[in-house]
């Protein structure tokens, strides 16, 4: 990571994800702005030159669902290591969830996170808690939190159980047009489940979490979004029934959106046959039918965003008996590769549509400025070689944790640079 003085990116294919156009050009960056797009005489250019033939230039990717663990569990991840993983994955923005220790339910923690991210290339845009201590009882000082830099609210991981509290939270957040993000899980139905409830959980003798545990809370949130008019976003949607509920609610005009993770698209419950704790996540990996429904949801626009739910856990915590392991996997460095290799190559989405869900769509939901690749605009973009493949080696991850289910897998799309805030990061190959 270093500051940009004068940078010329030669012969690059610019992908305009909003206008859905591609053009080949040279791009000059001066400090933190795009200075010029067009033909540039590189022989007389005084500054860094990147020959970007075969590269794509995309509006900076943003992951609206990550866990950076700082403050509290710096052994698992820090803001710095999480940002390093984000850059390696092609991201210029991340939204960390508030389940830190202490939890991000007050201005002080928001300021702490923003201060520690100041010198980072990656925009760290905190999501604050819906309720104090994420305990589900009293709503947080949402207006103050929004003013201090929180971009959305969520009690991710411990969803608000009380319907009246959720209603008040939506009404209050709605005053400042903030997004409420919900991890939908009925705590009683999910109970002590560790994987999807189905034939596989019966085979493995592991307590299951039924699709209905998610579906019921998605239905609740749709009802409350309709009632309050607040914009509500369903995190990591996993069950086919939930996708159908969101589809119908959108048709009706309810302000609802949702995201899917790459692991819910790539793996299913059968993959747990060896009790691999790196495939233990919440919501759990579902069935082939659910995956088909998630793909349909992406195709018809029911699913707005792809996000990683990057959830670092230490080796000691994951290398234990299945029931004792925590839920979650890391994913910032692999999400782009999985999306290109699985979602695009399997023709679920075109490249433009897939990348839109990793860049433009999340920013629109969060009311963040969308990076424009035009002269005079802030330089916020990612440079990738889309056709190159690479093999995931978890030992080389920039994250402080190693809990990746993709280790050893071949993925497509190599990140060659990310640019934001007047800084450039390039990997050392």
């Amino acid at each position, binding site marked *: 990571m270093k500051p940009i003085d004068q940078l010329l990116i030669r012969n690059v294919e610019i992908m305009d994800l909003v206008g859905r156009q591609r053009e080949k050009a040279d791009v000059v960056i001066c400090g933190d702005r795009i200075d010029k797009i067009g033909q540039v005489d590189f022989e007389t250019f005084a500054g860094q030159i990147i020959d970007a033939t075969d590269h794509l230039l995309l509006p900076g990717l943003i992951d609206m669902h990550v866990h950076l663990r700082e403050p509290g569990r710096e052994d698992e991840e820090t803001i710095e290591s999480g940002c390093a993983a984000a850059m390696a994955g092609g991201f210029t923005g991340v939204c960390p969830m508030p389940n830190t220790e202490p939890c991000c339910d007050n201005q002080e923690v928001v300021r702490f996170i923003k201060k520690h991210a100041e010198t980072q290339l990656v925009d760290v845009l905190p999501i604050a808690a819906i309720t104090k201590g994420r305990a589900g009882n009293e709503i947080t000082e949402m207006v103050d939190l929004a003013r201090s830099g929180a971009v959305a609210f969520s009690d991710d991981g411990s969803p608000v159980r009380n319907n009246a509290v959720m209603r008040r939270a939506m009404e209050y957040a709605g005053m400042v047009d903030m997004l409420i993000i919900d991890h939908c899980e009925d705590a009683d139905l999910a109970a002590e489940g560790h994987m999807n409830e189905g034939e596989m959980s019966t085979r493995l003798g*592991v307590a299951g979490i039924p699709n209905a545990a998610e579906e019921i809370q998605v239905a609740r949130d749709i009802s409350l979004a309709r009632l309050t008019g607040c914009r509500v976003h369903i995190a990591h949607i996993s069950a086919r029934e939930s996708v159908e509920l969101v589809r119908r609610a959108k048709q009706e005009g309810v302000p609802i959106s949702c995201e899917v993770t790459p692991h819910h698209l790539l793996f299913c419950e059968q993959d747990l046959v060896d009790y691999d704790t790196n495939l233990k996540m919440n919501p759990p990996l579902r069935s082939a039918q659910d995956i088909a429904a998630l793909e349909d949801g992406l195709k018809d626009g029911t699913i707005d965003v792809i996000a990683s739910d990057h959830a670092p856990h230490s080796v000691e915590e994951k290398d234990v008996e*299945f029931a004792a392991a925590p839920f979650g996997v890391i994913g910032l460095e692999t999400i782009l590769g999985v999306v290109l290799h699985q979602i695009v190559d399997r023709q679920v989405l075109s490249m433009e549509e897939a990348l839109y869900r990793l860049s433009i769509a999340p920013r629109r939901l969060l009311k963040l400025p969308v990076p424009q690749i035009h002269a005079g605009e802030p330089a916020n973009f990612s440079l990738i070689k889309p056709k190159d493949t690479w093999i995931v080696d978890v030992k080389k991850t920039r994250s402080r944790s190693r809990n990746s289910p993709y280790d050893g897998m071949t993925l497509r799309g190599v990140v060659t640079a990310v640019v934001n805030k007047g800084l450039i990061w390039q990997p050392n190959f």
Partner: protein
Amino acid sequence: MTLQSRHLLGLEGVSREEITLILDTSESFKEILQRPIPKVPTLRGKTVVNLFFEPSTRTRISFELAEKRLTADTVNFTTSSSSVKKGETLKDTIRNIEAMNIDMVVVRHSAAGTPLFLTRCVDAAVINAGDGMHEHPTQALLDMLTIRERIGKIAGLKVALIGDIAHSRVAGSNIRGLLTMGAEVMLCGPKTLMPMFVERFGVHVTFHLEEALEWADCLNVLRIQLERQDKGLFPSIREYHKLYGITLERLEQAKRDVVILHPGPINRGVELDSDVADSDYSVILNQVTNGVAVRMAVLYLLSGGNPSIE
């Protein structure tokens, strides 16, 4: 013939030939157990650790006795999961024990998959003595040995498992073993204690005891954990007994020579009435005797033993 795996993690994937080998070997050991000195030097010099992370009396004693009858050195490690949680990880525990040079581990744990997890941590052979709601293979083997002894065969028999199927690792292993051996299996219990999609194993499922009674050659009556009622999985012991309790009166609906098994310990008057448990239908004490023989056979075969014992 020998066993394909170095471990016995469950009966999933264990072939009919292998199960038959274990049962035949068990019969040889049973004969040894009836001698004046019921002990053989087969595992002399081998060390077996009984690693019990859940309270157990009969399974641990049965294994320990089997090990002693084979002249193995045995060590018991008994603890509750919670106290281990506070201290070192399971991986550290097992690797420390293995560093003392052991050959085999017998493990019981509340988390399904733990025996498989242990095979990735150590080189010793691992025997599953019950993992969560998953499998308890030696129990199913001793159940099958007892059935075969009493009726003379397993293939073609109709075996009903009665009670809390969902939480039962005994059922988990019995279903797999019995189907492999060519028996038909019916599961009978309240829907709240029946696992999801279990019919996909190729078993019959009923919620009505009468149906199971009329159908079965053998009834394997499972222990009902009384704490399941606290979780609201059935309304009362009274109603459970009324619907699924095996009484002499209800046995009039069953085949005349029906065989009754129970993995123990029995809740007398709940899933099984005393006069049934102590009747001629019951082979419950034979199961206990056979348990030692079956465990000797498993220990012996997994230690690389040749099927001809002497």
